[in-house]
């Protein structure tokens, strides 16, 4: 039976191949997953710090690295500046590094990611903060407690804030002059704001957009929600945190503080939220502001500095950008965000978070402390690319060259408006922001679209918030 010999042999051969492959797969499955850290030379024992690449310029990065080496010559550090367009983009890249098994020891995290990192990846800094309380006293005395509270999660501290940005309102003074309008009062309302936009539109022609905004979590719809006494998600405080408030803040400043913010039930279908969307929709319909998809921070500096936009929400980070774009200190100014039911403002802050995977936790803490020093922050934030978290650094000297004239607004947004709080950023923040952006676009597409879109936003947010991150 020669004919049947070959198939049988072939069968045996293929069977042997299969058994070999199965054995290989079994051996492979038995091993730990190979990761990027297994590449020879990749893990050299350095403390790896991931920063938002565009947050600091190369000189500042070098100064940070060299300065730390001088203080701690025994700790090898490697700064990994991750280039990203915004915080969401930055987190995606950090998560990719974690997936690849090359997680950094420290990550520069903004409010958007504080709770996500705290819940899944972060290490509470409580024991180190308690241990080095004497060393940290001057830092906390200089930093507004709201910023610190925004870096807490369920009673523990996860980051020391080094910068923040509240959404105040920037105005192009050349456009104001063309309009024949004065700089608004400190206490201006959304009605004053609308009147100003209409006057700007009349005086500056068809190719001019009075109000430019970017559809995102920070500085998009949220500041309007805060000003109307509402939020995207129900806000409350977690219990705990007394250890920190009692240790570092006087009685007056620790009243009402807790263990960090909690954002839970969505409020998208509430009347106050609908009021805000109706208002923004009316601005879109009147051609007084950019549509949600039209606003893009990437070309905002250009259109604002050339006088094609009159007003836009931004924080202290914009002073440096406008200066670089050639605007003189007198060419623009800043005011509080216009009030409606309340004067509450929104802010976002940032600092370094320690990752659970880090084997160099004590060294990481030393770096966190180092970056919170005033001299280090002064060096890092020399270009006014953000608002320093230390109150004493927000002074006339800092803004003399770049402007704006009313630079006090930046820190007064915290000091004089005690209700000011962080943008809603629960652990499900990525999905929340994505849904907000998507449904805001739909809601403002036509006058009748607001309520159906908000109902869909509410439903989607409820699902997202129920989901375990």
């Amino acid at each position, binding site marked *: 039976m020669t004919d049947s010999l070959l198939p049988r042999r072939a069968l045996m051969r293929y069977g042997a191949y299969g058994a070999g492959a199965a054995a290989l797969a079994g051996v492979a499955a038995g091993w730990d997953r190979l990761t990027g850290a297994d590449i020879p030379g990749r893990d050299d024992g350095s403390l790896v710090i991931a920063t938002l690449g565009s947050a600091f310029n190369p000189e500042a990065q070098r100064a940070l690295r060299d300065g730390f080496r001088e203080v701690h010559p025994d700790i090898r550090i490697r700064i990994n500046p991750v280039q990203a367009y915004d915080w969401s983009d930055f*987190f995606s890249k950090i998560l990719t590094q974690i997936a690849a098994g090359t997680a950094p020891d420290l990550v520069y995290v903004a409010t958007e990611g504080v709770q996500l990192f705290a819940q*899944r990846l972060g290490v509470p800094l409580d024991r180190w903060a308690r241990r080095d309380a004497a060393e940290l006293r001057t830092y906390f005395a200089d930093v507004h407690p709201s910023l610190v509270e925004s870096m807490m999660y369920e009673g523990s501290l996860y980051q020391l804030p080094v910068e923040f940005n509240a959404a105040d309102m920037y105005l192009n003074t050349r456009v104001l002059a063309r309009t024949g309008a004065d700089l608004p009062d400190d206490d201006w309302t959304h009605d004053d704001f609308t009147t100003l936009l209409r006057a700007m539109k009349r005086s500056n022609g068809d*190719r001019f957009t009075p109000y430019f905004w970017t559809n995102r979590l920070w500085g998009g719809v949220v500041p309007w929600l805060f000003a109307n006494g509402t939020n995207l998600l129900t806000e409350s405080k977690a219990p705990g945190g007394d250890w920190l408030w009692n240790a570092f803040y006087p009685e007056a400043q620790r009243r009402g503080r807790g263990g960090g913010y909690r954002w839970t039930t969505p409020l998208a279908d509430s009347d106050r939220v609908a009021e805000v969307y109706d208002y923004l929709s009316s601005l879109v319909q009147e051609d007084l502001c*950019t549509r949600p998809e039209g606003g893009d921070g990437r070309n905002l500096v250009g259109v604002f500095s050339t006088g094609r936009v009159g007003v836009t929400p931004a924080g202290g980070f914009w002073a440096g950008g406008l200066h670089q774009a050639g605007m003189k200190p007198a060419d623009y100014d800043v005011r509080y965000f216009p009030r409606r039911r309340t004067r509450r403002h929104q802010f976002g802050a940032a600092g370094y978070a320690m990752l659970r995977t880090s084997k160099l936790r004590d060294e990481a803490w030393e770096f966190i402390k180092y970056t919170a020093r005033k001299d280090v922050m002064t060096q890092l934030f020399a270009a006014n690319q953000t608002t320093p978290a230390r109150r004493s650094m927000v002074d006339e000297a800092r803004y003399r060259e770049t402007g704006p004239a009313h630079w006090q607004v930046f820190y007064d947004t915290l000091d004089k408006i005690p209700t000011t709080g962080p943008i809603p950023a629960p652990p499900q923040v990525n999905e929340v922001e994505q849904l907000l952006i998507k449904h805001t*676009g739909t809601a403002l597409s036509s006058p009748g679209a607001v309520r159906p879109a908000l109902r869909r936003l509410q439903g989607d947010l409820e699902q997202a918030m129920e989901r375990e991150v």
Partner: protein
Amino acid sequence: MTNTEIRPVGPEPARTRKSRRTGQIGKSSGSTAATTIRTRGTRLLAVLFLAPTVVGIVVFTVAPIVGSVVLSFFQWDVIDDPRWAGAANYRKILTDSTVLISFRNTLVFMVLAVALQLLVALVLAIAVNGRMPKWLRSVFRSAFFFPLVLSAASISVVMKYLFNQDFGPVNWLLGTVGVPSVPWLTSENGAMAAVVLAYVWQQFGFSFLLFVGGLNNIPKEVHEAASLDGASGVRKHLAITLPLLSPTLLVASVVGIINALQVFEQPYVLTAGGPGDSTRTVVMVIYETAFEQLRFGEASAVGVLLFALIMAVTALQFRLSRRYVHYQ
């Protein structure tokens, strides 16, 4: 061909097969040994030449595909170990309106983009293949191919500025001839149109080059004969150029469809999938589900469905090509 070379149809006699293994039939043992060594040497050389490609395909194509299929049956958030989920990921994505809309958008985009891309490329290839100085032809060929070598992300950033409703040069130009401001990126139809235009502008160069090559392979005599028979220019293109170019059209459309079904950069940068979900594509959903929402299992399941869709569309194309593609 001699009669001795004709072999009977059907299985070879067992003796012949055996002879192939032992090398003892009809040949002296010395020459047989030399042949065997030569054959083995040739095979070894072939294996060595093929090995880098095979290893590359296995490591970078087959393994990720298998990995994605396996991952699609797990829940994995990068941070913790994967957990078995069975078919839950598939059940979830098949009832998720965003996923379903993204497949619809991708198919709409594919039809519009591939049709426009092939049409523009074909018309320009025919035009460039006409009478013109050689240097001018080279200029056109380079110019049309040039966008293909640029980064899609950077093109999209520029396009976003060009199509901006309030500040963009496109609306400014249209305004100079009295066309009212078009909401390119802020209306559902305008956004899809902008994404398609940005994509086609970058991609048509590849199809253009294929068509130029295909046109050069059509014998001039056929066109000349048709001219003698009195066929007009359009008639010649419909009756001669298109049928003879059909193999090239098949290749261009297969590649175009596969690329279009994987579109990501243009909608991601230009519209972020908006307004609403109107330009959200399947690959965008995969990216957002995996890297923004940390649901790698669901993202893999969407990827597997997209893979199946691409395979199905490509198979359909090849099946249809038997009827519509004419090889010379």
